[in-house]
């Protein structure tokens, strides 16, 4: 390949990529954040800087990992060109008839984890709680951000609105509890029961502890908000059932630390996102692709007739 062609391939990949990063960053930075209850807006600014940086690191790390895959055999040209080729094929695939099959493979094997269920119900349940919890939490986050910051949906904003109580308070606590339950099972299994097939090295321990700290930090923050009667946490607090339980254990006057804890929780969540491509958590991205590859390519090796 000529140098000119190579640079062109690089430009075609990196320009849209950085444009995408810029758009994401601008969305993050320009949202109004009216319902973020930190009193000192410097904390909000610090969080926004950290989340923009961490999201950037996440996407760059992911791109770098994928470009390492692209150095393998089976495709032609420079890694960037190979990736572009695959992205192009992928976009056409979305419109093809096989997409339905890919979707069913994704739902059955990547989300529902059907094979794991056949082998160990406990581990399947544990994974489903963690994975399902995070996915639903992410979707809820999108929904809440959209309804709060874009359409200013009042029932989502007002203290006693149905959407505020059932979605922002109850549903978030529910999915957070699911993740917490899954993580607790994982931690007890890994650190207490230590089954023979489990091998705990530093990356395994860091991932699980990191996740636990982020999820527990969320409930702790909510507990502080309720105990300190921070705006947004003043009426019908029992809808945030787990946060409410945490608040019962909080000392008086804890509300004054709400901003600091909010920032710590926010930065830790951002760091967790940045950590994904460099940790075992990257399997969250690679495993569904492997499952799709198996589901779609195994047709070729289908049972002999």
């Amino acid at each position, binding site marked *: 390949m000529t140098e000119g062609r190579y640079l062109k391939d690089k430009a075609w990949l990196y320009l849209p990529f950085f444009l995408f990063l810029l758009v994401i960053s601008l969305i993050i930075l320009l949202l109004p954040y009216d319902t973020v209850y930190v009193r000192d807006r410097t904390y909000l600014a610090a969080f926004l800087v950290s989340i923009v940086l961490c999201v950037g690191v996440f996407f760059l790390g992911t791109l770098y990992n994928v470009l390492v895959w692209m*150095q393998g055999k089976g495709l032609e040209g420079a890694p960037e060109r190979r990736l572009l080729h695959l992205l192009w094929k992928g976009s056409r695939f979305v419109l093809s008839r096989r997409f339905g099959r890919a979707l069913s493979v994704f739902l059955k094997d990547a989300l529902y984890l059907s094979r794991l269920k056949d082998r160990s119900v406990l581990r399947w349940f544990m994974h489903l709680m963690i994975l399902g919890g995070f996915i639903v939490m992410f979707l809820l986050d999108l929904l809440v951000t959209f309804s709060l910051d874009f359409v200013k949906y009042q029932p989502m904003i007002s203290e006693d609105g149905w959407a505020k109580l059932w979605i922002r308070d109850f549903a978030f606590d529910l999915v957070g509890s699911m993740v917490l339950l899954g993580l607790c099972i994982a931690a007890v299994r890994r650190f207490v029961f230590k089954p023979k097939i489990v091998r705990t090295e530093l990356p*395994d321990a860091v991932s699980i502890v990191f996740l636990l700290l982020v999820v527990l930090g969320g409930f702790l923050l909510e507990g502080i908000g309720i105990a300190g009667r921070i705006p947004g946490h003043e009426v019908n607090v029992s809808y945030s059932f787990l946060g409410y339980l945490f608040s019962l254990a909080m000392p008086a006057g804890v509300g004054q630390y709400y901003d600091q804890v909010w920032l710590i929780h926010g930065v830790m969540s951002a760091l967790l996102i940045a950590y994904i491509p460099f940790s075992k958590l990257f399997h969250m991205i690679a495993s569904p692709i492997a499952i799709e590859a198996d589901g779609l390519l195994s047709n070729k090796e289908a049972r002999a007739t």
Partner: protein
Amino acid sequence: MKKLDISKLDVLALMRYDACTRCGECTATCPTGGEAQDVELVTPRGKILRLREFYRSQYGLRARLLGPKDIPEDQLKELASRAYECTICGQCKTVCPAHLDTIEMWENMREFLVANNLAPLPAHEEIIKSIENYDNPWMQPRTQRSRWSKRIEKEVKVKDALKERCEVLFFVGCTAAYDPNIRDMAVDTARVLGSARVDFGTLGNDEGCCGSTLLRTGLIDSAKKSAEKNIALFEKVSPSFIVTSCAGCYKTIRQDYPRLGKVSAKVVHATQLVGELIEDKKLVPSKRIDAKVTFHDPCHLGRHNKLYDEPRKILESIPGLKLVEMERTREESRCCGAGGGVKTAFPDLAQKIAAMRVEDAEKTGADILATSCPFCYQSLKAALEAKGSRIRMADLMELVRESCA
């Protein structure tokens, strides 16, 4: 500093290394890394993590920023050796929650090791030389390949497919053709085909090694040469079917050859063809064999090709024969320990695994342990003899021949 060349690892394999969740499901049932010996590096998870650690230290982000790390030669050699302590049985593929196609991964890992001058192992080199020089792994002259058919030349019409047109091409395979202890497998298959009046022939002394051993040990270029020779002969003969009695040849011709060239004929295993002949009443097992039989699924036939029902249907069609299943059967079947070059390089390990499979068979109370693969037959028979077991080892075609006599 030795820089690893990852361009020999498949794009899909590199993605799969990252998709491993480190759950360890594969370690419990891995016959070589988990059951016969407790060595993490031999298990699928161990190999994946170690190789990923190596190539990431030279190609990862840290390597890009701070420069690639040198990997000590002894660590590379250890990985190479451990990677060959795998029978490529595919049990890990069956259990992997991330659906990693580990069969492809291990074969590709070996190709990568060969490309990086870390393999093949010295124990495999002799076999490889034999295939390259004699077209068989047994150091036997080409002229002896069709010797097995002399015993039945008056009884069964085995055509020379290169001279006479025939409907079915019987690809005998090196082990059945050359190993005097396995030769009956070829003889019995030919007898069974003859009894059903199948119009069949062989490539005689021109048949070459299918290349399975070369492919499984990572020698892709040599395997391609073997495959191309055979494919040219298949196209010259142009039969409707190619039938093999060897599970390894079946996997290679059916799955690997189409990646290397065009095979026009339909490739079937003897169990498929014979099963159909029995179903169509062209072959009627009539003589009783009063015994309990258990079937060992060869990995290349079962997990690699999903042929589980055909051999069982054949056994159930034989009067008097009662099929009893081992606890681990079909997709969960325990490997015999011989595949993937393990028997050649690590005979003690292979023997240990075969002994475990024999114990599985003994627990069923079976009188006969049947299979459909010359390697499984060889290793299980040796394990039965070593254990002094009362169980008789039998090839499936042997039982069909007995019943159709």
